[in-house]
């Protein structure tokens, strides 16, 4: 859901995060994973996906499991705010409801215009040494991405 407050559009979303086995396995073995929520605001008049992108938002969270604490710590890489959760399900539950993510300034949108909001979620393990990454990629898939989801944005 997109709401407008003080001429700024905010996203209240509902995501479905389904990390694959490799990602979960890596997380449990102490390797941090990154959740990336990419949101594009595209002018709907342009052809397919190659239209003018008015705004690009990349909301990134780093999820690490602290063995000693026995808790999952989620750190917002933009703001630096971190929160801990007792279970991974709680982490997913918290991240599946993005709350008040600023999207675009209303002045950039034309009244009556056709705009689309596209979003995708990516979970990937990016803490592997470079030398091992290409070799590790031979055996496992260290990244899990959702397809682009699209919805109409009416100013």
């Amino acid at each position: 859901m997109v709401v407008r407050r003080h001429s700024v559009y905010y996203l209240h979303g509902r995501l479905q995060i389904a990390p694959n086995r490799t990602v979960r396995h890596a997380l449990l073995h102490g390797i941090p994973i990154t959740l990336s929520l990419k949101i594009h605001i595209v002018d709907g008049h342009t052809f397919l996906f190659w239209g003018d992108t008015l705004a690009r938002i990349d909301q990134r969270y780093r999820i690490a499991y602290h063995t000693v604490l026995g808790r999952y710590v989620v750190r917002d890489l933009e703001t630096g705010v971190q929160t801990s959760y007792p279970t991974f399900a709680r982490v997913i539950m918290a991240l599946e409801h993005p709350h008040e993510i600023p999207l675009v300034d209303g002045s950039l949108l034309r009244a009556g215009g056709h705009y689309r909001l596209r979003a995708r979620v990516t979970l990937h393990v990016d803490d592997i040494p470079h030398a091992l990454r290409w070799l590790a990629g031979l055996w496992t898939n260290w990244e899990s991405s959702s397809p682009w989801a699209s919805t109409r944005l009416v100013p």
Partner: protein
Amino acid sequence: MDKLGKLEPVGKHPTRSLKPRLLPLLTAATLLAVFCTFVLLASTTENPGLFGELDIPLLVLVVFGTTGLLSLIAVQIIHLGRIYPRREPGWNLIRRMVRTFVGLALIPVVLICAFAVVFIRNSIRSWYAPPVTRVVHTAVALSRGAIDDTLKKDLHITRRLARNLALTAPSAWPFLLGRLRSQSHALDVVLLDSNGRIVAMDSAFPFLLLPPTPSRAALEEATHASTNVVLSPGQGHHYTVRAVVPVPTSDPFARPLVLEAVFPVSGHETRTARQVEKAYARYEELTLLRRPLTWSLILTLILVTLLGVLALVTAALYFARRIVAPVDELVGAIGAVAEGRLDVRLETTGDDFGPLKRPFNRMIGRLETAQRTAEEHRQREEHERALLETVLAHLSAGVLVFDERRVLELANEAARRLLGLNREQDVGRDVGALRAAHPALEDFFATVDELLPASQEEIRREIVLGGGRRRRVVVARVTALPELPGIGRGGAVVFEDLTDLLEAQHDAAWGEVARRMAHEIRNPLTPIQLTAERIGHRFFDRLSESDRAWLQHAVETIVRQVEALQNMVRAFGDYARAPDLRFTRFDLSALTAEVADLYRGRYPHIEIVTDLAEPAPLIEADEERIRQVLHNLLRNALEALYGQTKGQVLLRVRYDLVQGDAELLVEDNGPGFSPVMLEHAFEPYTTSKPRGTGLGLAITKKIIEEHGGHTLLSNRAEGGARIAVVLPVNERTRAERLRAAAHRYHPSEAEPL
């Protein structure tokens, strides 16, 4: 030595093809890259964690080192590829040395590599052995236990604070919270309702406006009479314990409140917990990346082994070439000497082949000196030969040199011109072939053939040649030559054309005869004539009629013969004297036509035809003398046609302004000149006519030669005689011809025989 050429051994071609400093630079850079690779790998062996940080530099170094080594090997292989087809000396030695080097080193290297692979796999497997895993998990459990104790302690304190609050009136909560926080050493104490709104609070940080509130989940947990205590990573590197508990109340209608207290965790506990955390994460990471890590190390090892092998091959090739280089250099020097380069010298400093190279250099030095001397001799001979050829070319006398087989080896320009020989065709022919090729020179070469086996003394022989337009007289001197290289005991023939000289002498003698005759005969003629006439007058009346007639006849005969003698003497006088020529400009064609008209019609059976060039340029000559020439020639032709029923005389005048000549041609269809006449026609008193004086052609020739021209006699192919007179048309041409005639042996005047 500096002036001498430096040898370029065949083994240095590839080096020469690269930039002079590129190869050493590439070698140094490659060795440095390989060395750095080994150093970095050694450091990662001690600390595997560095492997992840140094992966990019390692990758760059390995790629650069491999490329450099492959380039160096390529250079060596290119060199081997160049010398292989030629099987140059040293090739087999290089091949064997490289094979030995690589063979000796490759087997141990491969064995060590295989052993290292097994060792790495086993070592990595040992990292994950059950005891190690148990130790790691035990450490984590111990650390958790310590943390749990802290949590329990802080949860207990928080509950006690909540109970104290429950016993106190709400108005006193702010004051009580401050005291309780101070007593419990908490960082923050916050009292909140179920919606998360702050009811009261106290903080160890007085400037903190609002403390971090518990999450909605924690609030719900605490509101529903449960507890929530967590150890969270706080600000900086410290952990904090955040405990959220419900505030007990006996009033069922009172709003539910929760108390949140934040306690610091001691630095020691934090560090211990973090270290355990880090070690566990590291261990789990290694566990997860076990297979790629193993393969990464194995591949690295294989890569390093490959680098080593490449370095080994490069070193083997390099040292093999170094060892073979002196042999290569020596072979190159010998090859250069074989090609005629004697300026090469071998470097003899610091070389085991010095004892061989020094005598080689001395030998080449001697060869070079000998060659230089030979070259100087050759140049001197060439110079002398050129000088001789120049002298011979400017000689007026002809020179022919025959070898001992009588083959013509040399003919100077004068000889070629006088005899009409061709340098390319005739030089190299023997005398027999020359006789066959030049029938007109039969007498000449027959004489040469006869005289060639001459002794050392010179033999002179006068030879008459008549094959050309003019009869020529040459005097040949044949001399035996000393034995010469390439010629043997040959002979030289030196000959001179004396035709002009003899003719001049002949003309001078006839002139003297004519002058004397004119002088000696003319004087008594007049007294003879007068005496005869006086005898006639004195005795005419005294004689009988018959005697009178006889006397008159005798006197008339004497007078007539005296007159004839006087005419002859006058003609001789004309021939002998050399009157001054009076040159004027006149039209030769008009003069010819005028003279022809005088004779035309006088002899009905003879037709006089003129062919006169138009337009006719004016020529410079003595008109009266030329008129005399025309009269002589025309009269000579008409007399030659005496008794012929249908005679014809042609007078033709042509001009060659390029050469500066005018040609007068007189032809008749009479009997022509006899061979004797052709030879002696220009001599005085030579005539084929019974009444001629024999001076007409002689005077004509003399007049024409005084004008710088010449006269030629010949017979027409269709019958009849032809007399050609060539006259210079102007003073300049005439001066040139006269100057040439004065130098009778001048090449420009001479003509082939």
